[in-house]
Protein backbone atom coordinates (compact mmCIF):
# COMPACT_ATOMS: atom_id res chain seq x y z
CA UNK A 1 0.00 0.00 0.00
CA UNK A 2 1.27 3.45 -0.91
CA UNK A 3 1.85 5.45 2.25
CA UNK A 4 -0.29 8.52 2.68
CA UNK A 5 0.04 9.52 6.33
CA UNK A 6 3.64 8.61 7.06
CA UNK A 7 5.21 9.09 3.65
CA UNK A 8 7.44 11.83 5.04
CA UNK A 9 8.06 10.32 8.47
CA UNK A 10 11.70 10.64 9.48
CA UNK A 11 12.61 12.74 6.42
CA UNK A 12 14.65 15.83 7.21
CA UNK A 13 13.16 19.00 5.79
CA UNK A 14 9.84 17.40 4.84
CA UNK A 15 7.99 19.71 7.24
CA UNK A 16 8.53 22.86 5.16
CA UNK A 17 5.88 24.19 2.83
CA UNK A 18 8.25 24.09 -0.16
CA UNK A 19 8.78 20.38 0.38
CA UNK A 20 5.05 19.83 0.83
CA UNK A 21 4.19 21.81 -2.31
CA UNK A 22 6.76 19.90 -4.38
CA UNK A 23 4.88 16.70 -3.51
CA UNK A 24 1.56 18.08 -4.72
CA UNK A 25 0.59 19.70 -1.43
CA UNK A 26 -2.47 21.98 -1.19
CA UNK A 27 -3.77 20.74 -4.57
CA UNK A 28 -6.61 19.04 -2.68
CA UNK A 29 -7.52 22.31 -1.00
CA UNK A 30 -7.56 24.11 -4.35
CA UNK A 31 -9.85 21.45 -5.77
CA UNK A 32 -12.18 21.50 -2.78
CA UNK A 33 -12.57 25.29 -2.82
CA UNK A 34 -14.23 24.94 -6.21
CA UNK A 35 -16.75 22.42 -4.92
CA UNK A 36 -20.01 22.72 -3.02
CA UNK A 37 -19.51 21.96 0.71
CA UNK A 38 -22.30 19.39 0.57
CA UNK A 39 -20.50 17.48 -2.15
CA UNK A 40 -17.38 17.33 -0.01
CA UNK A 41 -19.36 15.96 2.93
CA UNK A 42 -20.85 13.37 0.58
CA UNK A 43 -17.40 12.45 -0.68
CA UNK A 44 -16.15 11.89 2.86
CA UNK A 45 -19.27 9.82 3.62
CA UNK A 46 -18.63 7.75 0.49
CA UNK A 47 -15.02 7.19 1.49
CA UNK A 48 -16.16 5.42 4.66
CA UNK A 49 -13.66 7.38 6.80
CA UNK A 50 -14.20 6.76 10.50
CA UNK A 51 -12.66 8.80 13.32
CA UNK A 52 -9.11 7.75 14.15
CA UNK A 53 -9.10 9.11 17.70
CA UNK A 54 -10.63 5.94 19.06
CA UNK A 55 -14.39 6.03 18.77
CA UNK A 56 -14.56 5.29 15.05
CA UNK A 57 -17.55 7.53 14.36
CA UNK A 58 -18.16 8.13 10.62
CA UNK A 59 -16.54 11.49 9.84
CA UNK A 60 -18.87 12.60 7.03
CA UNK A 61 -21.90 11.85 9.18
CA UNK A 62 -20.44 13.89 12.04
CA UNK A 63 -19.98 16.84 9.69
CA UNK A 64 -23.53 16.54 8.37
CA UNK A 65 -24.94 17.27 11.86
CA UNK A 66 -23.63 20.83 11.67
CA UNK A 67 -26.46 23.29 10.93
CA UNK A 68 -25.77 24.86 7.54
CA UNK A 69 -27.19 28.28 8.31
CA UNK A 70 -25.35 28.90 11.60
CA UNK A 71 -23.32 32.11 11.29
CA UNK A 72 -20.48 31.01 13.58
CA UNK A 73 -18.96 27.52 13.56
CA UNK A 74 -15.72 25.97 14.69
CA UNK A 75 -13.43 23.10 13.85
CA UNK A 76 -11.26 21.67 16.60
CA UNK A 77 -8.44 19.30 15.84
CA UNK A 78 -7.87 16.90 18.70
CA UNK A 79 -4.10 16.58 19.04
CA UNK A 80 -4.20 15.81 22.75
CA UNK A 81 -2.69 12.40 22.07
CA UNK A 82 -2.55 10.93 25.55
CA UNK A 83 -3.82 7.36 25.47
CA UNK A 84 -0.83 5.35 26.71
CA UNK A 85 0.65 3.38 23.82
CA UNK A 86 -0.29 6.06 21.28
CA UNK A 87 2.24 8.23 19.47
CA UNK A 88 0.94 8.42 15.91
CA UNK A 89 -0.35 12.01 15.77
CA UNK A 90 2.99 13.31 16.96
CA UNK A 91 4.58 11.54 13.97
CA UNK A 92 2.31 13.41 11.55
CA UNK A 93 2.65 16.78 13.26
CA UNK A 94 6.45 16.70 13.48
CA UNK A 95 7.18 15.46 9.99
CA UNK A 96 4.16 16.48 7.90
CA UNK A 97 2.43 19.41 9.60
CA UNK A 98 1.09 20.76 6.30
CA UNK A 99 -0.77 17.51 5.68
CA UNK A 100 -2.74 18.21 8.84
CA UNK A 101 -3.19 21.91 8.04
CA UNK A 102 -4.49 21.09 4.56
CA UNK A 103 -6.88 18.57 6.13
CA UNK A 104 -8.06 21.21 8.60
CA UNK A 105 -8.68 23.69 5.78
CA UNK A 106 -10.67 21.10 3.80
CA UNK A 107 -12.81 20.15 6.80
CA UNK A 108 -13.36 23.79 7.78
CA UNK A 109 -14.56 24.66 4.29
CA UNK A 110 -16.87 21.63 4.23
CA UNK A 111 -18.60 22.55 7.48
CA UNK A 112 -18.33 26.33 7.03
CA UNK A 113 -16.01 27.03 9.96
CA UNK A 114 -13.99 30.23 9.88
CA UNK A 115 -11.85 29.43 12.86
CA UNK A 116 -10.05 26.24 13.75
CA UNK A 117 -8.12 25.32 16.86
CA UNK A 118 -5.50 22.61 17.13
CA UNK A 119 -5.60 21.38 20.71
CA UNK A 120 -2.17 19.86 21.28
CA UNK A 121 -0.97 18.31 24.51
CA UNK A 122 1.42 20.54 26.43
CA UNK A 123 4.32 18.10 26.46
CA UNK A 124 4.55 18.17 22.64
CA UNK A 125 6.55 21.39 22.58
CA UNK A 126 8.51 20.51 19.46
CA UNK A 127 5.41 19.46 17.51
CA UNK A 128 3.59 22.63 18.59
CA UNK A 129 6.49 24.75 17.29
CA UNK A 130 6.52 22.85 14.01
CA UNK A 131 2.77 23.40 13.62
CA UNK A 132 3.04 27.10 14.43
CA UNK A 133 5.80 27.54 11.85
CA UNK A 134 3.81 25.61 9.27
CA UNK A 135 0.70 27.71 9.96
CA UNK A 136 2.74 30.90 9.38
CA UNK A 137 4.04 29.47 6.09
CA UNK A 138 0.50 28.58 5.00
CA UNK A 139 -0.66 32.14 5.73
CA UNK A 140 2.22 33.57 3.70
CA UNK A 141 1.31 31.44 0.69
CA UNK A 142 -2.35 32.34 0.97
CA UNK A 143 -3.67 28.90 2.01
CA UNK A 144 -4.95 30.35 5.29
CA UNK A 145 -6.29 33.76 6.28
CA UNK A 146 -8.65 36.14 4.48
CA UNK A 147 -10.12 35.24 1.11
CA UNK A 148 -8.10 32.06 0.53
CA UNK A 149 -6.84 31.82 -3.08
CA UNK A 150 -9.38 34.45 -4.06
CA UNK A 151 -12.36 32.21 -3.36
CA UNK A 152 -13.93 34.33 -0.64
CA UNK A 153 -13.42 31.61 1.95
CA UNK A 154 -11.53 32.76 5.06
CA UNK A 155 -10.01 30.63 7.77
CA UNK A 156 -7.83 31.29 10.79
CA UNK A 157 -6.01 28.38 12.44
CA UNK A 158 -4.68 28.62 15.97
CA UNK A 159 -2.62 26.31 18.16
CA UNK A 160 -3.94 25.88 21.69
CA UNK A 161 -1.61 24.03 24.03
CA UNK A 162 -3.01 21.79 26.73
CA UNK A 163 -0.94 21.49 29.88
CA UNK A 164 -1.11 18.01 31.29
CA UNK A 165 -4.60 16.46 31.41
CA UNK A 166 -5.46 13.20 29.64
CA UNK A 167 -9.16 13.97 30.03
CA UNK A 168 -8.89 16.87 27.55
CA UNK A 169 -8.81 14.27 24.80
CA UNK A 170 -12.52 13.83 25.59
CA UNK A 171 -14.10 16.24 23.15
CA UNK A 172 -16.23 18.32 25.51
CA UNK A 173 -13.41 18.56 28.08
CA UNK A 174 -11.25 19.79 25.22
CA UNK A 175 -13.78 22.55 24.52
CA UNK A 176 -13.87 23.56 28.20
CA UNK A 177 -10.09 23.78 28.14
CA UNK A 178 -10.04 26.08 25.10
CA UNK A 179 -12.58 28.28 26.85
CA UNK A 180 -10.18 28.63 29.78
CA UNK A 181 -11.76 26.28 32.28
CA UNK A 182 -10.67 23.10 34.00
CA UNK A 183 -10.91 20.31 31.45
CA UNK A 184 -13.98 18.52 32.72
CA UNK A 185 -16.48 16.91 30.34
CA UNK A 186 -19.83 18.54 29.59
CA UNK A 187 -23.20 16.89 29.73
CA UNK A 188 -24.35 15.52 26.36
CA UNK A 189 -26.74 16.36 24.80
CA UNK A 190 -26.43 18.98 23.53
CA UNK A 191 -23.72 17.51 21.33
CA UNK A 192 -20.91 19.77 20.07
CA UNK A 193 -22.37 19.70 16.55
CA UNK A 194 -25.15 21.95 17.85
CA UNK A 195 -23.55 23.57 20.88
CA UNK A 196 -19.79 23.23 21.07
CA UNK A 197 -17.05 25.81 21.43
CA UNK A 198 -18.53 29.03 22.87
CA UNK A 199 -21.92 27.40 22.45
CA UNK A 200 -21.56 27.32 18.66
CA UNK A 201 -21.74 24.34 16.29
CA UNK A 202 -18.39 22.58 16.42
CA UNK A 203 -16.74 19.55 14.86
CA UNK A 204 -13.92 17.85 16.75
CA UNK A 205 -11.73 15.55 14.64
CA UNK A 206 -8.52 13.71 15.43
CA UNK A 207 -5.19 14.58 13.73
CA UNK A 208 -5.02 11.31 11.79
CA UNK A 209 -8.64 11.65 10.66
CA UNK A 210 -8.05 15.13 9.25
CA UNK A 211 -4.76 14.04 7.68
CA UNK A 212 -6.62 11.45 5.59
CA UNK A 213 -8.62 14.17 3.83
CA UNK A 214 -6.11 15.45 1.25
CA UNK A 215 -5.63 11.91 -0.07
CA UNK A 216 -9.39 11.29 -0.20
CA UNK A 217 -9.81 14.47 -2.28
CA UNK A 218 -6.83 13.74 -4.55
CA UNK A 219 -7.32 10.03 -5.09
CA UNK A 220 -11.07 9.81 -4.62
CA UNK A 221 -13.48 8.31 -2.14
CA UNK A 222 -13.50 5.01 -4.00
CA UNK A 223 -9.75 4.63 -3.63
CA UNK A 224 -10.01 5.14 0.12
CA UNK A 225 -13.00 2.82 0.46
CA UNK A 226 -11.15 0.09 -1.44
CA UNK A 227 -8.45 -0.21 1.23
CA UNK A 228 -9.18 -2.70 4.03
CA UNK A 229 -12.58 -3.84 5.30
CA UNK A 230 -15.73 -2.43 3.72
CA UNK A 231 -17.10 -1.00 6.99
CA UNK A 232 -13.91 0.56 8.28
CA UNK A 233 -11.67 1.30 5.32
CA UNK A 234 -8.55 3.32 4.70
CA UNK A 235 -4.95 3.48 5.76
CA UNK A 236 -4.29 3.35 9.49
CA UNK A 237 -1.26 4.12 11.60
CA UNK A 238 -0.43 1.44 14.15
CA UNK A 239 2.00 2.40 16.87
CA UNK A 240 3.78 -0.62 18.25
CA UNK A 241 5.59 -0.45 21.59
CA UNK A 242 6.75 -2.76 24.36
CA UNK A 243 8.59 -6.05 23.92
CA UNK A 244 9.07 -6.10 20.15
CA UNK A 245 12.27 -5.99 18.14
CA UNK A 246 11.26 -2.98 16.07
CA UNK A 247 8.90 -0.70 17.93
CA UNK A 248 7.57 2.24 15.92
CA UNK A 249 4.84 3.56 13.65
CA UNK A 250 3.49 1.45 10.80
CA UNK A 251 1.02 2.71 8.23
CA UNK A 252 -0.93 -0.28 6.96
CA UNK A 253 -4.36 -1.03 5.57
CA UNK A 254 -7.06 -1.03 8.19
CA UNK A 255 -7.85 -4.65 9.01
CA UNK A 256 -4.24 -5.87 8.91
CA UNK A 257 -4.09 -8.86 11.27
CA UNK A 258 -2.49 -8.17 14.62
CA UNK A 259 -0.11 -11.10 14.11
CA UNK A 260 1.25 -9.56 10.91
CA UNK A 261 1.75 -6.19 12.63
CA UNK A 262 3.69 -7.72 15.51
CA UNK A 263 5.68 -10.43 13.73
CA UNK A 264 6.22 -9.04 10.22
CA UNK A 265 6.35 -5.30 10.68
CA UNK A 266 7.56 -4.93 14.27
CA UNK A 267 9.99 -7.84 13.91
CA UNK A 268 8.47 -10.19 16.48
CA UNK A 269 9.08 -10.48 20.20
CA UNK A 270 12.48 -9.39 21.55
CA UNK A 271 14.95 -12.18 22.32
CA UNK A 272 12.51 -14.53 20.57
CA UNK A 273 10.50 -14.91 23.75
CA UNK A 274 6.86 -15.92 23.81
CA UNK A 275 4.08 -13.37 23.58
CA UNK A 276 1.98 -13.21 26.70
CA UNK A 277 -0.53 -10.43 26.06
CA UNK A 278 -1.09 -7.52 23.73
CA UNK A 279 -3.14 -4.38 24.15
CA UNK A 280 -4.49 -3.54 20.67
CA UNK A 281 -5.52 0.10 20.96
CA UNK A 282 -4.16 2.03 23.90
CA UNK A 283 -4.48 0.98 27.54
CA UNK A 284 -8.29 1.36 27.63
CA UNK A 285 -8.63 -1.51 25.16
CA UNK A 286 -9.01 -4.95 26.79
CA UNK A 287 -5.92 -7.05 26.14
CA UNK A 288 -5.68 -10.02 23.81
CA UNK A 289 -3.67 -13.22 23.95
CA UNK A 290 -1.93 -15.49 21.44
CA UNK A 291 -5.06 -17.22 20.17
CA UNK A 292 -6.60 -13.86 19.19
CA UNK A 293 -3.67 -12.59 17.13
CA UNK A 294 -5.30 -13.33 13.80
CA UNK A 295 -7.97 -10.72 14.47
CA UNK A 296 -8.06 -8.04 11.77
CA UNK A 297 -7.21 -4.66 13.26
CA UNK A 298 -10.34 -2.68 12.50
CA UNK A 299 -13.14 -1.18 14.55
CA UNK A 300 -15.71 -3.93 14.05
CA UNK A 301 -13.48 -7.00 14.23
CA UNK A 302 -12.00 -5.94 17.56
CA UNK A 303 -15.39 -4.96 18.98
CA UNK A 304 -16.66 -8.41 18.04
CA UNK A 305 -14.09 -10.09 20.29
CA UNK A 306 -14.75 -7.72 23.19
CA UNK A 307 -11.88 -5.31 22.72
CA UNK A 308 -11.45 -2.18 20.64
CA UNK A 309 -9.25 -0.62 18.00
CA UNK A 310 -9.10 2.62 19.96
CA UNK A 311 -6.15 4.66 18.80
CA UNK A 312 -4.30 1.71 17.26
CA UNK A 313 -1.60 1.87 19.93
CA UNK A 314 -0.36 -1.71 20.20
CA UNK A 315 1.48 -2.58 23.44
CA UNK A 316 3.18 -5.98 23.38
CA UNK A 317 4.07 -7.86 26.55
CA UNK A 318 6.25 -10.96 26.56
CA UNK A 319 6.24 -13.91 28.96
CA UNK A 320 8.38 -12.09 31.54
CA UNK A 321 5.63 -9.54 32.23
CA UNK A 322 3.77 -9.63 35.54
CA UNK A 323 0.15 -8.90 34.69
CA UNK A 324 -0.61 -7.62 38.20
CA UNK A 325 2.07 -5.00 37.78
CA UNK A 326 0.81 -4.11 34.31
CA UNK A 327 -2.70 -3.74 35.75
CA UNK A 328 -1.34 -1.60 38.58
CA UNK A 329 0.41 0.76 36.15
CA UNK A 330 -2.78 1.11 34.13
CA UNK A 331 -4.97 1.71 37.22
CA UNK A 332 -2.47 4.23 38.58
CA UNK A 333 -2.79 6.06 35.27
CA UNK A 334 -6.60 6.20 35.29
CA UNK A 335 -6.80 7.22 38.93
CA UNK A 336 -4.24 9.96 38.27
CA UNK A 337 -6.15 11.21 35.23
CA UNK A 338 -9.71 11.04 36.55
CA UNK A 339 -10.89 14.65 36.40
CA UNK A 340 -12.81 14.42 39.68
CA UNK A 341 -16.16 15.54 38.29
CA UNK A 342 -18.19 12.39 38.99
CA UNK A 343 -17.97 10.15 42.03
CA UNK A 344 -17.95 6.66 40.46
CA UNK A 345 -14.86 7.56 38.44
CA UNK A 346 -13.06 9.78 40.96
CA UNK A 347 -13.49 7.39 43.90
CA UNK A 348 -13.78 4.20 41.87
CA UNK A 349 -10.54 4.51 39.92
CA UNK A 350 -8.72 5.40 43.16
CA UNK A 351 -10.09 2.30 44.89
CA UNK A 352 -9.19 0.12 41.92
CA UNK A 353 -5.66 1.49 42.04
CA UNK A 354 -5.33 0.97 45.81
CA UNK A 355 -6.53 -2.62 45.69
CA UNK A 356 -4.39 -3.61 42.70
CA UNK A 357 -1.47 -1.79 44.35
CA UNK A 358 -1.75 -3.78 47.56
CA UNK A 359 -1.92 -7.04 45.61
CA UNK A 360 1.16 -5.96 43.63
CA UNK A 361 3.00 -5.00 46.84
CA UNK A 362 2.32 -8.40 48.43
CA UNK A 363 -0.37 -7.12 50.75
CA UNK A 364 -3.40 -8.46 48.91
CA UNK A 365 -6.21 -10.08 50.85
CA UNK A 366 -8.39 -13.06 50.04
CA UNK A 367 -11.48 -11.74 48.29
CA UNK A 368 -9.67 -8.82 46.64
CA UNK A 369 -10.29 -10.15 43.14
CA UNK A 370 -14.03 -10.42 43.84
CA UNK A 371 -13.92 -6.93 45.36
CA UNK A 372 -12.32 -5.58 42.18
CA UNK A 373 -14.95 -7.26 40.06
CA UNK A 374 -17.77 -5.84 42.14
CA UNK A 375 -16.21 -2.36 42.02
CA UNK A 376 -15.94 -2.60 38.24
CA UNK A 377 -19.67 -3.24 38.10
CA UNK A 378 -20.32 -0.12 40.16
CA UNK A 379 -18.23 2.09 37.89
CA UNK A 380 -18.97 0.80 34.39
CA UNK A 381 -21.79 2.69 32.67
CA UNK A 382 -22.25 5.00 35.65
CA UNK A 383 -19.66 7.63 34.90
CA UNK A 384 -20.05 10.99 33.25
CA UNK A 385 -17.65 10.23 30.40
CA UNK A 386 -15.81 7.18 29.03
CA UNK A 387 -12.70 7.53 31.27
CA UNK A 388 -14.13 5.39 34.07
CA UNK A 389 -15.36 2.84 31.55
CA UNK A 390 -11.86 2.72 30.06
CA UNK A 391 -10.36 1.84 33.44
CA UNK A 392 -12.92 -0.92 33.95
CA UNK A 393 -12.53 -2.36 30.44
CA UNK A 394 -8.77 -2.52 30.88
CA UNK A 395 -8.96 -4.17 34.30
CA UNK A 396 -11.71 -6.61 33.36
CA UNK A 397 -9.59 -7.64 30.37
CA UNK A 398 -6.64 -8.52 32.61
CA UNK A 399 -8.79 -10.21 35.25
CA UNK A 400 -10.62 -12.29 32.67
CA UNK A 401 -7.45 -13.74 31.20
CA UNK A 402 -4.97 -13.69 34.07
CA UNK A 403 -7.04 -14.13 37.22
CA UNK A 404 -4.72 -16.86 38.47
CA UNK A 405 -1.83 -14.40 38.53
CA UNK A 406 -3.78 -12.16 40.89
CA UNK A 407 -4.64 -15.13 43.12
CA UNK A 408 -1.01 -16.25 43.07
CA UNK A 409 0.11 -12.75 44.06
CA UNK A 410 -2.36 -12.69 46.96
CA UNK A 411 -1.34 -16.14 48.23
CA UNK A 412 2.43 -16.05 47.65
CA UNK A 413 3.04 -12.29 47.99
CA UNK A 414 5.10 -12.27 44.82
CA UNK A 415 4.91 -12.47 41.02
CA UNK A 416 4.10 -15.65 39.20
CA UNK A 417 6.66 -14.88 36.49
Amino acid sequence: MEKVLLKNFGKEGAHTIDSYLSGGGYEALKKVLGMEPEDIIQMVKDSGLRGRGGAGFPTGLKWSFIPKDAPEKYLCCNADEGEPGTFKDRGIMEYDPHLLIEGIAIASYAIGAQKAYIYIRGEFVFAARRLQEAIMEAYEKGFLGENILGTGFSLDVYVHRGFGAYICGEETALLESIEGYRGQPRKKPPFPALSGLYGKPTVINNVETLSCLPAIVNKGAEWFASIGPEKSPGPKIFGVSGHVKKPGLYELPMGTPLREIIYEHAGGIRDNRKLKAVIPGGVSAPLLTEEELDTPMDFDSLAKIGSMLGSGGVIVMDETTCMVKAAYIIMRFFSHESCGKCTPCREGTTWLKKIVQRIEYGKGRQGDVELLESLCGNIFGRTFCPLGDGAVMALRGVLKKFKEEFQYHIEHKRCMV
Partner: protein
Amino acid sequence: MDEKTRKEIEEKIVPKYRTRRSACMATMQLVQSQKGHLTKEDMEEIAALLGMQPVEVEAVGKFYTMYNVERPVGRYHIQVCENLSCSLMGGEHILKHIERLLGIKTGETTSDKKFTLSTVQCLGSCGTAPVIQINDDYYENLNEKKVEEILGKLR
Protein backbone atom coordinates in the same frame (compact mmCIF):
# COMPACT_ATOMS: atom_id res chain seq x y z
CA MET B 1 4.64 40.93 34.81
CA ASP B 2 6.58 43.40 32.71
CA GLU B 3 5.26 45.62 29.92
CA LYS B 4 6.66 43.35 27.20
CA THR B 5 4.81 40.34 28.61
CA ARG B 6 1.56 42.29 28.88
CA LYS B 7 1.96 43.41 25.30
CA GLU B 8 2.57 39.86 24.13
CA ILE B 9 -0.54 38.66 25.96
CA GLU B 10 -2.74 41.42 24.49
CA GLU B 11 -1.37 41.20 20.96
CA LYS B 12 -0.53 37.53 20.50
CA ILE B 13 -2.76 35.52 22.84
CA VAL B 14 -6.02 37.36 23.53
CA PRO B 15 -6.92 37.98 19.84
CA LYS B 16 -6.89 34.22 19.16
CA TYR B 17 -10.06 33.76 21.17
CA ARG B 18 -13.64 34.95 21.48
CA THR B 19 -13.32 35.55 25.24
CA ARG B 20 -10.49 36.92 27.37
CA ARG B 21 -10.84 34.00 29.71
CA SER B 22 -9.79 31.61 26.92
CA ALA B 23 -6.38 33.28 27.03
CA CYS B 24 -5.69 32.18 30.60
CA MET B 25 -4.03 28.84 29.81
CA ALA B 26 -1.57 30.33 27.34
CA THR B 27 -0.96 33.36 29.58
CA MET B 28 -0.13 31.11 32.52
CA GLN B 29 2.18 29.11 30.24
CA LEU B 30 3.96 32.28 29.19
CA VAL B 31 4.45 33.50 32.75
CA GLN B 32 5.62 30.09 33.92
CA SER B 33 8.09 29.85 31.04
CA GLN B 34 9.79 32.99 32.35
CA LYS B 35 10.30 31.85 35.93
CA GLY B 36 9.63 28.12 36.15
CA HIS B 37 6.57 28.31 38.37
CA LEU B 38 3.52 30.41 39.22
CA THR B 39 3.03 32.30 42.47
CA LYS B 40 -0.18 33.53 44.07
CA GLU B 41 0.75 37.06 42.95
CA ASP B 42 1.21 35.89 39.35
CA MET B 43 -2.23 34.32 39.35
CA GLU B 44 -3.81 37.45 40.86
CA GLU B 45 -2.18 39.55 38.16
CA ILE B 46 -3.34 37.20 35.41
CA ALA B 47 -6.86 37.21 36.85
CA ALA B 48 -6.99 41.02 36.89
CA LEU B 49 -5.67 41.19 33.34
CA LEU B 50 -8.19 38.70 31.93
CA GLY B 51 -11.23 39.72 33.99
CA MET B 52 -11.27 36.57 36.10
CA GLN B 53 -11.30 35.86 39.82
CA PRO B 54 -7.92 34.79 41.24
CA VAL B 55 -9.46 31.53 42.42
CA GLU B 56 -10.55 30.75 38.86
CA VAL B 57 -6.98 31.07 37.63
CA GLU B 58 -5.76 28.96 40.53
CA ALA B 59 -8.38 26.29 39.76
CA VAL B 60 -7.01 26.04 36.22
CA GLY B 61 -3.44 26.01 37.50
CA LYS B 62 -4.08 23.17 39.91
CA PHE B 63 -6.07 21.07 37.44
CA TYR B 64 -3.43 20.83 34.72
CA THR B 65 -0.38 18.99 35.99
CA MET B 66 2.22 20.95 34.00
CA TYR B 67 1.55 24.18 35.89
CA ASN B 68 3.92 24.45 38.82
CA VAL B 69 1.59 26.35 41.11
CA GLU B 70 3.46 27.65 44.15
CA ARG B 71 5.93 24.84 43.53
CA PRO B 72 9.34 26.09 42.43
CA VAL B 73 11.30 23.63 40.34
CA GLY B 74 14.99 23.44 39.56
CA ARG B 75 16.57 24.85 36.43
CA TYR B 76 16.16 21.44 34.83
CA HIS B 77 12.88 19.66 35.51
CA ILE B 78 13.38 15.98 34.74
CA GLN B 79 10.18 14.02 34.19
CA VAL B 80 10.42 10.25 33.86
CA CYS B 81 7.55 8.45 32.15
CA GLU B 82 6.18 5.69 34.37
CA ASN B 83 3.45 4.37 32.10
CA LEU B 84 3.20 0.89 30.64
CA SER B 85 5.38 0.97 27.51
CA CYS B 86 8.18 2.78 29.32
CA SER B 87 7.91 0.46 32.30
CA LEU B 88 8.14 -2.59 30.03
CA MET B 89 11.33 -1.16 28.55
CA GLY B 90 12.99 -0.36 31.87
CA GLY B 91 11.65 3.08 32.82
CA GLU B 92 11.88 2.28 36.53
CA HIS B 93 15.57 1.51 36.28
CA ILE B 94 16.08 4.83 34.57
CA LEU B 95 14.22 6.57 37.40
CA LYS B 96 16.26 4.81 40.11
CA HIS B 97 19.47 5.55 38.24
CA ILE B 98 18.67 9.26 38.05
CA GLU B 99 17.84 9.25 41.78
CA ARG B 100 21.26 7.73 42.45
CA LEU B 101 23.09 10.12 40.13
CA LEU B 102 21.45 13.22 41.59
CA GLY B 103 21.26 12.00 45.16
CA ILE B 104 17.59 12.91 45.47
CA LYS B 105 14.30 11.06 45.58
CA THR B 106 11.45 11.48 43.11
CA GLY B 107 9.63 14.72 43.87
CA GLU B 108 12.71 16.45 45.26
CA THR B 109 15.03 19.21 44.03
CA THR B 110 18.81 19.15 44.37
CA SER B 111 20.21 21.54 46.99
CA ASP B 112 21.84 23.67 44.27
CA LYS B 113 18.34 24.10 42.74
CA LYS B 114 19.59 22.74 39.45
CA PHE B 115 17.50 19.58 39.09
CA THR B 116 13.96 18.58 40.06
CA LEU B 117 12.96 14.96 39.52
CA SER B 118 9.34 13.88 38.90
CA THR B 119 7.48 10.99 37.39
CA VAL B 120 4.95 11.66 34.67
CA GLN B 121 2.16 9.76 32.95
CA CYS B 122 2.49 8.75 29.29
CA LEU B 123 4.53 11.28 27.25
CA GLY B 124 3.25 9.92 23.93
CA SER B 125 6.60 8.55 22.85
CA CYS B 126 6.00 4.85 23.49
CA GLY B 127 7.82 3.58 20.40
CA THR B 128 11.07 5.06 21.68
CA ALA B 129 10.68 4.01 25.32
CA PRO B 130 12.02 4.53 27.89
CA VAL B 131 11.60 8.27 27.65
CA ILE B 132 12.22 11.28 29.86
CA GLN B 133 11.44 14.93 29.35
CA ILE B 134 13.80 17.64 30.58
CA ASN B 135 12.13 21.05 30.42
CA ASP B 136 10.82 21.19 26.82
CA ASP B 137 12.93 18.40 25.34
CA TYR B 138 12.37 14.67 24.98
CA TYR B 139 15.19 12.14 25.42
CA GLU B 140 14.27 8.76 23.94
CA ASN B 141 15.52 5.16 23.73
CA LEU B 142 17.35 5.63 27.01
CA ASN B 143 19.71 3.40 28.91
CA GLU B 144 21.82 4.09 31.99
CA LYS B 145 24.82 5.24 29.98
CA LYS B 146 22.78 7.70 27.90
CA VAL B 147 21.24 9.14 31.06
CA GLU B 148 24.70 9.68 32.54
CA GLU B 149 25.80 11.51 29.38
CA ILE B 150 22.70 13.71 29.34
CA LEU B 151 22.98 14.67 33.00
CA GLY B 152 26.74 15.12 32.65
CA LYS B 153 26.16 17.79 30.00
CA LEU B 154 23.65 19.65 32.17
CA ARG B 155 25.66 19.62 35.37
